[in-house]
């Protein structure tokens, strides 16, 4: 395969891991993070330590990256998840920036110049296999009582509590899953590019990921996948317009929120069962409208 095409596929696959996690957090649980690049950074550096310094295999580095980012997310979550939404946003923003600043000052790991000569362990196959596993596990999680509880938290936190949902616990689970996947993505990124710098994991990266989730549609795994495919591959193909890429992103976010808050396919899934469900909802809605109309006419007589 063409090395260029392969590169695009690998990058898309890496992004997909991080987007998938953020989809759980933002799309399904309704929490908004400005700091997920921070979790990617933790994963990238933990992964680098395991492969470069400790000489362990790539698989171990990936697992360690996920565990490291996940562990930090538990700490952050304990401190901030009980707070109101805005405070959580600002806290994640602070977290992401703090991680970057700490890495900048961490001489042992290369400081601001970064860390290079990481083993080039990423292949198109290991990315795609990990992607497939992650998609299946996340999908299964979301389509269970646990996933439904997350959605309940997003839809109406107070009502979720009154329905016996431990809101804090489910927010924590969502944060952990998203952080672990971001950590993995970070480690993949490092071992694909063979170098990492703190600058790679700035706020622009965090918002990039969130935009993909929104673009694909909140509350839809297939939307997030579709969003990743479109928004990672397209800019690579239209490199000439790279300057305008983010202008378009920003505008698209506003237009989506104002005009089509469900994004491409928010709240729906492109699976046979998902499509049947949409059809059922449509039928039910039109039946309801017809009944209402009939009742109205009956009332006039």
């Amino acid at each position, binding site marked *: 395969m063409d090395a260029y095409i392969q590169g695009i596929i690998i990058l898309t696959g890496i992004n997909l891991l991080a987007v998938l996690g953020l989809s759980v957090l933002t799309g399904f649980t309704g929490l908004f993070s400005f700091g997920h690049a921070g979790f990617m950074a933790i994963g990238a550096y933990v992964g680098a330590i395991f492969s470069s310094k400790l000489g362990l295999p790539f698989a171990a580095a990936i697992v360690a990256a996920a565990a490291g980012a996940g562990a930090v997310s538990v700490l952050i979550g304990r401190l901030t998840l009980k707070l109101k939404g805005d405070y959580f946003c600002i806290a994640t923003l602070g977290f992401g920036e703090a991680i970057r600043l700490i890495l900048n000052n961490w001489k042992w790991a290369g400081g601001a110049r970064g860390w290079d000569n990481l083993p080039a362990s990423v292949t198109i196959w290991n990315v795609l296999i990990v992607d497939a596993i992650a998609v299946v*596990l996340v999908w*299964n*999680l979301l389509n*269970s*009582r*646990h*996933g*439904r*509880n997350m*959605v*309940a938290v997003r*839809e*109406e936190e*107070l*009502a*979720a*509590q*009154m*329905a*016996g*949902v*431990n*809101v804090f616990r489910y927010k924590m*689970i969502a944060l952990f899953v998203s952080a672990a996947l971001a950590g993995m993505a970070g480690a993949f990124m490092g071992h694909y590019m063979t170098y990492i710098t703190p600058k790679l994991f700035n706020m622009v990266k965090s918002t990039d990921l969130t935009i993909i989730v929104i673009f694909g549609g909140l*509350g839809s795994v297939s939307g997030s996948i579709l969003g990743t495919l479109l928004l990672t591959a397209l800019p690579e193909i239209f490199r000439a317009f790279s300057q305008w890429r983010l202008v378009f992103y920003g505008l698209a976010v506003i237009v989506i929120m104002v005009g089509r808050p469900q994004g491409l396919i928010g*709240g729906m899934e492109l699976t046979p069962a998902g499509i049947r*469900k949409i059809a*059922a*909802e449509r*039928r*039910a*809605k039109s*039946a*309801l409208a017809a009944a*209402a109309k009939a009742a109205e006419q009956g009332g006039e007589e």
Partner: protein
Amino acid sequence: MSAILEIRGLTKRFGGLAAVNDVSFDVREGGISGLIGPNGAGKTTIFNLVTGVYKVTAGSIAFAGRPIADLEPYKIAAAGITRTFQNIRLFKNLSAFDNVLTACHTGAKYGLAESMLRLPRYWREEKALRAKADELLGIMGLADRRDVTANNLPYGLQRRLEITRALALGPKLLLLDEPAAGMNPDETEQLMRLIGKIRDDFRLSVLVIEHHMDLIMGVCEHIHVLNFGCTLADGSPGDVANDPKVVEAYLGSEEGKKSC
């Protein structure tokens, strides 16, 4: 009949203001009790205290003999107290079925790993949950609206769906916050019958806040009247209706303010 809910000396202060002041009453097991009073009397605040949304300032709440004032809301719900809201709070973008299915979750025990790997218990319990959600929708007359997004349901049915969702947890005590708000006399009549039916079919106790006097007087066996956060009267519908203090409070006399 013994009491399922015992409220003793319950007080809630917001800053200097006492929204609920030294209120004591019981909800009898298997009974339908009413909580009435003019606007701002502290009725919804009591619901919020019982369900753990607000922290109690002073006093105690015991549910089935067990103190619950310090429990987290979700634990109180799991222990068997569920509620509806004055301003309906459904999971708006989910179908009626998914609203109920979500609330059925306490009926399943499978863990995170079991759901991710779809182990046998996941399939078994998921099937049971779905059957239960469908059964509940059937009992509550919502089966034909199963797939309608909650947001698109007419107002009366949204209220009914909210009650269905509350029932999904298998509560022992159901708190209804103005279930008849915005309903016409016909719908209120239907609702009265429904509340009685729920009590009998699900063998639970009900505490209802309502402004519709017909509904309260028609369905409640026991009524507690609040005014300005204090108890004004407590007794059977007949006693309460004839209590001069209650009449006064509802006619808006200044005396009401002095009574506590």
